[in-house]
């Protein structure tokens, strides 16, 4: 039963993700004054890739190269299941599911690095090294920004120290959204920029960089493994706004009422459109600029937000 629920949550997230990636492409097309693809385009893409031939380069380490997309996809699906459990049944989540989600969300990136390095292509190697640097850069501010709701909830004697997403959602029901406080607002902006990097969207699309690395870390993949990589990205595109809405926008509030689904959908679309617009209005950063931005720009800001939260602002 639990397994069936988890699989259902992952598949549901995947469907949401297909819709999100269509929204992404459609909004991008409209920004560029084009018409854009039809609604089912992401489904067509994946269906086509599943039917294509799988090529493995002579220089690739076959098993690791093919296993990496599977590992990444599994981790993303697991993260989706944990998030939905926290949203739909807040009381049943376990103490550290926030930590588990953050941990699971790094695995697709690590699997991507492994797969790219195993592919034996110099372009993919450059992409992998950039992905590694990017991961090191954005993880610190991402975790610091996730600490802000935790610290805010920790100041409430009724909630106490907890890393449980369900408890954080319930705390926000009583105390208002995390975003409506000074520390929460600062942390929210930081988290949104980290989410952008986590999704490797412009201005942080360095690992793939179509125009200079021609696909970078995914360059050597073809057929079903490439379909899995796309499905992973699709899942992440759905997970990231939900993660943001859970920590900063009060999740879906009271899951029992029908309005909560509408509220979650509204928050979801708002975050998604913000991400897509940032992607469409910014040029790509160089990797050194991106690292400086995260380490010396966002990390101190996120640290200050944690201190502010601890002081009660």
């Amino acid at each position: 039963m639990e397994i069936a629920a988890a699989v259902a949550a992952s598949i549901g997230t995947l469907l949401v993700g297909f819709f999100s990636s269509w929204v992404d492409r459609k909004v991008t097309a409209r920004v560029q004054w084009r018409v854009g693809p039809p609604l089912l385009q992401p489904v067509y893409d994946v269906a086509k890739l599943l039917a294509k031939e799988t090529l493995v380069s002579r220089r690739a380490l076959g098993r690791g190269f093919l296993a990496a997309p599977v590992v990444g996809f599994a981790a993303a699906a697991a993260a989706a299941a944990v998030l939905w459990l926290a949203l739909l049944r807040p009381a049943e989540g376990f103490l550290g599911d926030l930590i588990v989600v953050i941990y699971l969300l790094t695995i697709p990136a690590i699997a991507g690095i492994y797969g790219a390095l195993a592919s034996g292509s110099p372009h993919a190697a450059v992409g992998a090294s950039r992905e590694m640097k990017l991961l090191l850069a954005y993880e610190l501010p991402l975790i610091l920004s996730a600490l802000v709701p935790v610290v805010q909830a920790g100041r409430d004697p009724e909630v106490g120290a907890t890393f449980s997403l369900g408890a954080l959602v319930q705390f926000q029901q009583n105390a208002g959204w995390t975003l409506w406080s000074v520390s929460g607002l600062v942390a929210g902006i930081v988290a949104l920029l980290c989410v952008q990097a986590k999704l490797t969207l412009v201005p942080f699309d360095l690992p793939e960089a179509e125009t200079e690395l021609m696909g970078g870390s995914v360059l050597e993949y073809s057929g079903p493994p490439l379909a899995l990589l796309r499905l992973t990205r699709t899942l992440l595109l759905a997970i990231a706004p939900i993660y943001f809405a859970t920590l900063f926008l009060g999740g879906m509030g009271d899951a029992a009422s029908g309005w909560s689904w509408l509220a979650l959908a509204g928050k979801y679309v708002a975050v998604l459109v913000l991400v897509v617009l940032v992607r469409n209005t910014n040029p790509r950063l160089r990797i050194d600029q991106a690292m400086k931005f995260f380490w010396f720009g966002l990390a101190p800001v996120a640290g200050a937000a944690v201190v502010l939260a601890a002081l009660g602002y």
Partner: protein
Amino acid sequence: MGWKTWGLKRSPWVYHVNVGACNNCDIEILELLTPRYDVERFGIVLVGSPRHADALLVTGICTRQAEPRLRAVYEQTPKPCVVFLIGACACTGGIFRHGYGMARPADEAIREIDPGAIIAYVPGCPPKPEAMIVGAVKALAAL
């Protein structure tokens, strides 16, 4: 219609191979991506790697330098895939047919390694973007 070609017909990703073109056809290909024609309406996207491609857009006469590369790129493209020969040069050699740099027509170079290759010819110097879209529709219908 089999499920294998169901997705392929709706999302052909193309990789552009220049084997010695004068850049005129290449400019017309980029025209397809502009708001005026916007082939992403049909799921057609330009990709950076032949491994991701479902269609190869070959432009230019097949020069001696480019011929082995063209065959390598064709081998790196996962099957099923379609080859589009864009422009008079790629189709027949055009006015450079008897030039010293011409190896042989591009379709012969590809048929040598894969006799069953699906090859579509879009003549013109350069072909109009509309002609390329018609070529794509016909080639996908033949799959």
